[in-house]
């Protein structure tokens, strides 16, 4: 800096440059960590999806995804994710609505939110055990329904190791996540809006259709996208629940990495790339819609 002023150069630019380069150093450890253990591994997978074993560019791996068994795996993954995200949004919204606007006493709210915090983090292998012990062939609910009501769940075609069973299980962490996200949004709904609508003669239905839902829909749709990505990437619950009997994409990829099936590692890259694309789209929809919905919540 003394050199710069001695040479009678305009002082600000060198000074600013010097400060930026110095401050930048402070986050180098973090950036190095992120590059080494988050960005590079992901990029390695993404570029691997477009390379053949010799390292040349190819679209064969991506094209190989379009074989019936893999398409079927993606399709059932997407169906489970859509179903659990949709039901999670719907039921979570109703629960949050009941607590925030439905006239329930105030003491209900805090336990519900605390429990939601716990349940939204209670995923993985133990969750699968819990549902096996409850809805499995010898589970509590199965036995109660059989002995007390004469309903044979498994006779009716229900199976915990299936599309319906997995969706039911995923709801255990999807609903609480929705409650946690949508409760602040419902808190932001001003009482005045409802009063203004009813003074103008709107019915309750009209208020929801023309005022509340237009304000809430970015939150609802965004959370739907988040819940979708949340269940699309979940492996542990499904693996502990079904072993490898239900071929959803994460389990297929898990088996491929373990070396059980599909001896072509580049097909594994393509599988993983497909997962990133789908969860990536869902998350960007979430972030984008969230930014939109924050205009209303001050």
């Amino acid at each position, binding site marked *: 800096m003394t050199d710069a002023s001695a040479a009678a150069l305009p002082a600000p630019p060198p000074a600013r440059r010097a400060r930026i380069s110095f401050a930048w150093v402070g*986050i180098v450890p973090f950036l190095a960590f992120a590059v080494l253990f988050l960005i590079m591994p992901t990029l390695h997978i993404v570029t691997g999806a477009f390379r053949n074993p010799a390292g040349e560019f190819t679209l064969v791996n991506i094209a190989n995804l379009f074989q019936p068994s893999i398409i079927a795996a993606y399709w059932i993954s997407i169906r489970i994710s859509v179903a659990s995200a949709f039901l999670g949004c719907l039921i979570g919204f109703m629960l949050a609505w*009941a607590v925030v606007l439905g006239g329930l006493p105030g003491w209900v709210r805090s336990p519900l939110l605390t429990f939601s915090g716990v349940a939204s983090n209670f995923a993985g292998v133990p969750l699968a055990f819990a549902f096996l012990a409850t809805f499995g062939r010898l589970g509590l609910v199965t036995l109660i329904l059989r002995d007390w009501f004469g309903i044979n769940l498994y006779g009716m075609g229900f199976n915990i190791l299936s599309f319906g069973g997995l969706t039911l299980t995923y709801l255990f962490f999807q609903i609480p996540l929705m409650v946690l996200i949508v409760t602040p949004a419902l808190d932001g709904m001003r009482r005045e809006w409802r009063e203004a609508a009813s003074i103008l003669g709107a019915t309750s239905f009209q208020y929801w259709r023309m005022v509340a839902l237009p304000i809430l829909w970015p939150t609802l749709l965004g959370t739907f996208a988040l819940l979708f990505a949340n269940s699309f990437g979940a492996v542990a619950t499904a693996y502990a629940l079904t072993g490898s009997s239900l071929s959803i994409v994460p389990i297929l990829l898990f088996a491929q990495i373990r070396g059980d099936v599909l001896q072509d590692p580049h097909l594994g890259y393509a599988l993983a790339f497909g997962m990133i694309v789908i969860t990536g789209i869902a998350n960007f929809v979430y972030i984008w819609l969230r930014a939109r919905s924050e205009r209303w919540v001050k």
Partner: protein
Amino acid sequence: MKANRFWSWAFLALGVLYFALPLIGTFEFSMKMRRGVYSLDAYWAVLADPRFQATFTYSVMMALATIVVGVLLVVPTAYWVRLKLPGWRPYLEFVTLLPLVIPPIVIVFGYIRLYNTSSWLPLTGTALGTNILLMFGYVVLSLPYMYRAVDTGLRAIDVRTLTEAAESLGAGWLTIMWRVILPNVLVAVLSGAFLTFAIVIGEFVLAALLNRPAFGPYLQLIGANRAYEPAALAVIAFAITWGCMALIQVVSRFAPRAPTQPH
């Protein structure tokens, strides 16, 4: 309004039923090991299993190491960004959110390919190297929660004034971090740490694919081979998760609130 309240109670009752049934069912199932009577046999069987003790200890150690490394990485960075590089905040926030976008199984797949024995950094070649890699993977998984918690904590204090005050009293950077910033964001750090603990303790995918003897793969193994012990383990895991969340609640009562600090 009456009908409204009726429906609210109905929804709440259905919700409570859905969330209570698996917990009750699991608890009931876990006590059925001895035929005919309820007993805690499954719990004793689990607790006496040396593999339970070994894997649980391993995962606890992993969680603690993850928390230490995560804090060392996140606190100085978040502080530095708030103080000197506010323009970088959105980008850093984006990076810390990436682990929510990229499924963990994809990240660990990348690790296996990138850090295998024939690569430039053969971390998976030795047990210690693999442990370190797994720990870094856990730091990545906890990044979104840790960074958000610390950043929120930093928002509640006046970083610039505190730093300038400490500097004018002659404190160096290490002293500022250790004796000024960290105590002020300790509550935020602790809530991030408890959440990290809850995530790491039962994590399955990373540990299974890196082939480490952690608690998650042990759970899965027991689940595939036993009848009653998994239910007991699920109850224990739920209790741990609940304990971590309860500690977050307790700790966050002591959080400093921005407007209450007179400057």
